[in-house]
């Protein structure tokens, strides 16, 4: 037994030696650490990197413009971590960021990892703004530190369900979700709203976030002749789904949520994407003051926007905005300023309700025409 104990000690010592780096104060500037967490490996790595880039762009801009808090020059430094979209890893990196002394966190990307991590940020009184977690449960925990800059599933789903029935005139609706927290949450809300608006849900089918073959469920849906197919899920599934609908000769319209409203969808589905509909919270980028400028800056630096980087960018600015008003990067001080946020971002006007959800958030509907997402209309969500 003892021989092996020695082995552990050696390994532990090696770990200590390797990881002892701590953030250092750099010159005359105060270094303030900001955390960013998203999946940087695994199937959603492309979205995770997009979020990181959004935060980084905002952070670089703020640094370039110069930030002074409490009379001292402040340099922001980004600590970006990979949670692999895994709840357990999410809590580990959350604790790691807290240890490293971040004063605020932009993240996480998925609801499934945002929720368990929010407990750790709350326990340590570190403000957290998620750019893209939409599950209602995230802000329902009652933590003072939990905020998000995107409308939640209930807000967006209500708009989508209403829109499908009243504006698109769909009487018979088929609903598919990918059995993730996001897809299922959104699809359930769409179903509720569509029924309330007088639509009939003729089929409810399911897939997974790893699937690419939907022929079986689409064939079954085709037999029920719906006017519209709603899919709660992301673009890697939505694109082949649209193609396969065309292949089966289905006439039904395709409607998706923010996971499908991406340039990648058009790239992946090609000509079949024509006519597809999807929503995204907030206002269209080009309609926003500074929106097209953001897009140009982002694409010059990191290539195409994947999906949530504008929200990540706004979330970062909202955080710094609160610090500026508090004139401090001390979480204890600027946390009190976050509820008073009224910030004009590239995704819309950002204000928070008592839970940390965005108030009166708008949802915009888009349709693919001539190989581009065209804005159809912007709807104010219920609350």
């Amino acid at each position, binding site marked *: *037994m*003892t021989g*092996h*104990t020695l*082995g*552990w000690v050696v*390994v532990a010592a090696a*770990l*200590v030696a*390797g*990881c*002892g*780096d701590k953030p250092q104060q750099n010159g005359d500037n105060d270094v303030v650490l900001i955390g960013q967490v998203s999946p*940087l*490996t695994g199937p959603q790595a492309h979205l995770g990197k997009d979020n990181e880039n959004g935060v980084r762009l905002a952070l670089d801009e703020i640094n370039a413009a110069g930030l002074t808090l409490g009379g001292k020059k402040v340099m922001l430094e980004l600590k*970006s*971590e*990979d949670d692999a*979209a*895994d*709840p*357990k890893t999410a*809590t*580990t*990196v959350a*604790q*790691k960021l*807290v*240890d*490293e002394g971040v004063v605020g966190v932009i993240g996480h990307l998925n*609801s*499934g990892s945002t*929720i*368990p991590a929010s*407990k750790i940020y709350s*326990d340590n009184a570190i403000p957290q703004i998620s750019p893209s977690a939409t*599950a209602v*449960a995230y802000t*329902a*925990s009652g933590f003072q530190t939990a905020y998000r800059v995107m409308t939640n599933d209930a807000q967006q789903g209500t708009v989508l369900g209403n829109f499908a029935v009243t504006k698109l005139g769909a009487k018979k609706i088929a609903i598919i979700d990918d*059995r*993730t*927290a996001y*897809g*299922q*949450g959104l699809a359930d809300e769409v179903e509720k709203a569509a029924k309330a608006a007088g639509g009939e849900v003729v089929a409810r089918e*399911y897939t997974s976030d790893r699937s690419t073959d939907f022929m079986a469920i689409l064939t079954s849906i085709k037999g029920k002749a719906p006017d519209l197919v709603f899919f709660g899920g992301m673009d890697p599934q939505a694109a082949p789904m649209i193609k396969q609908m065309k292949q089966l000769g289905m006439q039904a319209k395709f409607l998706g949520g923010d996971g499908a409203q991406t340039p990648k969808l058009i790239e992946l589905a090609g000509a079949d994407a024509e006519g597809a509909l999807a929503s995204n919270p907030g206002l269209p980028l080009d309609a926003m003051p500074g929106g097209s400028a953001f897009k140009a800056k982002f694409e010059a630096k990191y290539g195409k926007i994947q999906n949530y980087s504008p929200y990540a960018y706004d979330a970062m600015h909202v955080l710094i905005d609160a610090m500026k008003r508090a004139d401090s990067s001390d979480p204890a001080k600027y946390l009190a300023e976050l509820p008073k946020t009224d910030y004009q971002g590239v995704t819309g006007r950002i204000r928070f309700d008592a839970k940390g959800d965005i108030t009166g958030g708008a949802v915009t509907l888009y349709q693919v025409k001539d190989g581009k997402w065209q804005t159809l209309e912007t709807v104010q969500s219920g609350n």
Partner: protein
Amino acid sequence: MSSVLKSRWFTFGLLALGLALLPFLVDAGLGRSWVRLLDLALLYVMLALGLNIVVGYAGLLDLGYVAFYALGAYVYAWLASPHFGLHLPFWAILPLGAALAGLFGVLLGAPTLRLRGDYLAIVTLGFGEIIRIFMNNLNAPVNLTNGPQGINLIDPVRLGSFSLSQPHELFGYTFTGVHLTYYLFLLLTLAVIFISMRLEDSRIGRAWVAIREDETAAAATGINTRNLKLLAFAMGATFGGLAGGLFASFQGFISPESFNLMESIMILCMIVLGGMGHIPGVIFGALLLTLLPEALRYTGDWQRNLFGQIYVDPADLRMLLFGMALVAVMLYRPAGMFPSTRRRREFADAKG
């Protein structure tokens, strides 16, 4: 004998002291996130020891072990969260979850008794996935598991008003939640180690080894292979269920994505890498595979220290290095880092 005993007591004393002080040393040297990781690592030690009974002792390749972990976690969440409005104490739920997992171990083990080797592997993998899919979908027609949304706000381990999620002042020191959790997990891990050691040297343990080496011959010598295989499944599952309950209380949130196939594979890697059927090896494997991927997060700092700048994003490099480590260890120590003497002999035989 007595002098051997004395020196043994001395080593045990030293070990106990080391283990008791470990979270403080780690906290001071590396930061609190490493104490949290230590908690997780202990959890994986329990899981790996549980799977070791099935795979290492009885030689039944089980790729669906995570199902029992999930069961334990969900039982805890059902009985101690706002989901059903129940808030039973942990000392009632943990044994219940472990027992239920054990029962499922027998239920799922029974149909597989005729299967061998890789066929058993794929059937257990199937059971693991089936349980996960049910957890993911049983939010309708009756909301049992809350589906993919998971169950939130699960109660931490609490005794009276003493909660493991809050810091406490004891003897002038502040014990935070992760420190206290460490001691609870350590205690249970030691119990699991103790049971594993006793099993290994018992009639049951030797019968398992006989089944692993040659099932037909074992049956011929009068060993009831059916009951003993079921017992191995049940014991392994019980430990899995226990770890699951602890995981639920520790995280405060569970959702089906924590219980996927990759998790089962990782636990299997732990025991094979460490040394199958050999308790210190299994413990080492569990610690290594929990801590290594986290240590590899620092590759960015290493690159900066070595080359002055970062060439490859640490997030991209981390899993690549992890994969390479898996291959390298197996190539240089095919029987694991610390194989049992029996396996070492077998390996030498096979080579010769």
